[in-house]
């Protein structure tokens, strides 16, 4: 074994139903956002008037964290270089990048927020 070398796939959390519990819903009050770890990735949870969204906390433009970015009318604006993304579809809304922001299906049950981690 070579300890400095990770095993492929070994870092993803397992989940019976494809959803992984990440946070208590009470810890994400309306208007707030929070970056949570999902294996080696980070996911940004945003509580907007339309509900709770989960997107990669990694802007596909320059691969920077998104946390702290402004959200308005269902669109998030990356604080770094101004890329805009639709929070529901992840699709870019301006020309900073043509890549989509990864979105995660969200399930809220028994006061807990869980995310689907299957590739999308």
């Amino acid at each position, binding site marked *: *074994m*070579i*300890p*400095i*070398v*990770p*095993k*492929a*796939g*070994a*870092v993803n959390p397992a989940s019976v139903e494809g959803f992984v519990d990440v946070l208590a819903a009470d810890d994400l009050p309306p208007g707030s956002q929070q970056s949570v770890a999902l294996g*080696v990735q980070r996911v940004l949870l945003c509580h907007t008037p339309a509900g709770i969204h989960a997107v990669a906390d*990694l802007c596909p*433009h*320059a*691969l*920077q*964290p998104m946390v702290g970015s402004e959200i308005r009318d269902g669109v998030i604006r990356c604080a*770094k270089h101004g890329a805009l993304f639709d929070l529901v579809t992840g699709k870019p809304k301006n020309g900073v990048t043509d890549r989509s922001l990864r979105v995660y299906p969200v399930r809220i049950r028994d006061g807990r927020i869980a995310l689907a981690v299957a590739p999308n």
Partner: protein
Amino acid sequence: MAAEESVIRGVSSAVSPLTEALIEADSREVGAGLRTRGNYLPQQKKIPLHRYHSMEYAALEKERLWKRVWQFACREEDIPNVGDRVPYTVGDVSFVVVRSGPREFRAFYNTCLHRGTRLCDGAGSGASLRCPFHAWEWHLDGSLKNIPSRWDFGQVKNAEYHLPEAKVGTWGGFIFINPDPSAPPLEPSLGVLPEFFEDCPAEDRFTAFHIRKRVRANWKVTLEAFLESYHVVETHSDSLTFTGDASTQYDIWEEGVSHISRLITPLAIPSPHLGDGASATAAVDRAYEVFAMAMPGVPVPKFDPNSTLSGRAQVAEWRRQMLGAGLARDLARWPDVAMLDSIQYFMFPNFCPWYGEGLPLIYQFLPYGTDPNESLMSVRLTAPLPGAGAPRPPAAPIMELDFDEPFSSRPEIGLLSLIFDQDMSNLPRIQAGIRGADPNRAEATLGRYQEQRIQHFHEVLERTLGA
């Protein structure tokens, strides 16, 4: 260096000392190499941007740089058995590096002397070098072995059809070549490297991962993106919580025939950019997490406030134990700085060997084909040879990544793949910006301390090219 010039050598914060102070506070004795400071500061000059995209400049580099200097080609472990060979290709000039004897290496122009066919396309093996077109064949020492229909080539005298060779030199398991037949030996070009790596022998390591990435940027743009930690604040902003970017130490050793530089970027401390109120504890915890990513299933420790050790010493001690157990090697004498920090050397023109276990990488930078807007970057992750009499593991095969393939498509290197992708996302943008610059402002302005290695690189390049 002007005697009166006062250079600010990095900044610290209340929770993030300069690298020199961290070395001073190490829990182990730090060897002379890491304590020695450089002897040179280059003159401050702007860098003309045309040299990153001009065909004329690339042609000059081909003739006066790549055909005349010692350059890192490959590792001995890449060709472990007699007859093994790999191509080493710089732009459109290609060599085939061969293990011609148990401890003998040769590098031939990778071109058949019959009608010019390339002899070796990729790693291979055999008792001879044989052209796939008409089977002209050479012995491993480059002497002509056979020509089919020999009767038809009366004009060919065997002695005149020895494969043309480049000079070959080795150090630390690295193979260097120099195509200039009148070149001096390799050793003086290595400068301080043999002395500084004496307590961390590169020959006692093996390539655990090897990625070769095609990049849409000039080879110097790609190289220079990796010679400073100044870019961490924007490009790797998610690493600031545990990376001493602005407290990084830079050194240059300029000795006429050798051009070596080094950076030491400390980890497990917060960036000085985060101010005096940044959390040293969070930096330690995050460093634990980052190092643990390479060891799935291993419990991730936290900073222990009751320990007599500093936070950095705690992480270093955990690394000594984990790595030592995994490799059956005693790492007890290794200083904290060698267990944690990013210690990267650069030898002009294309070679970055890293020191220690913090981030044990090897970089190689090369022009790709004839387009000066493209390059190749080779990244190896190395590990110490296992102890307890275990055999040398084979060198990992090369994983090729095309222009648009991210490092994250190879998840085996964990967090490193995100860091490389962050760098890679910049490079085509830099190249595009350079090409489109206002001709009256087409020059780069370099930081006096943090970008001095780039300044030095260009100083040596200009001298080498005579332009």
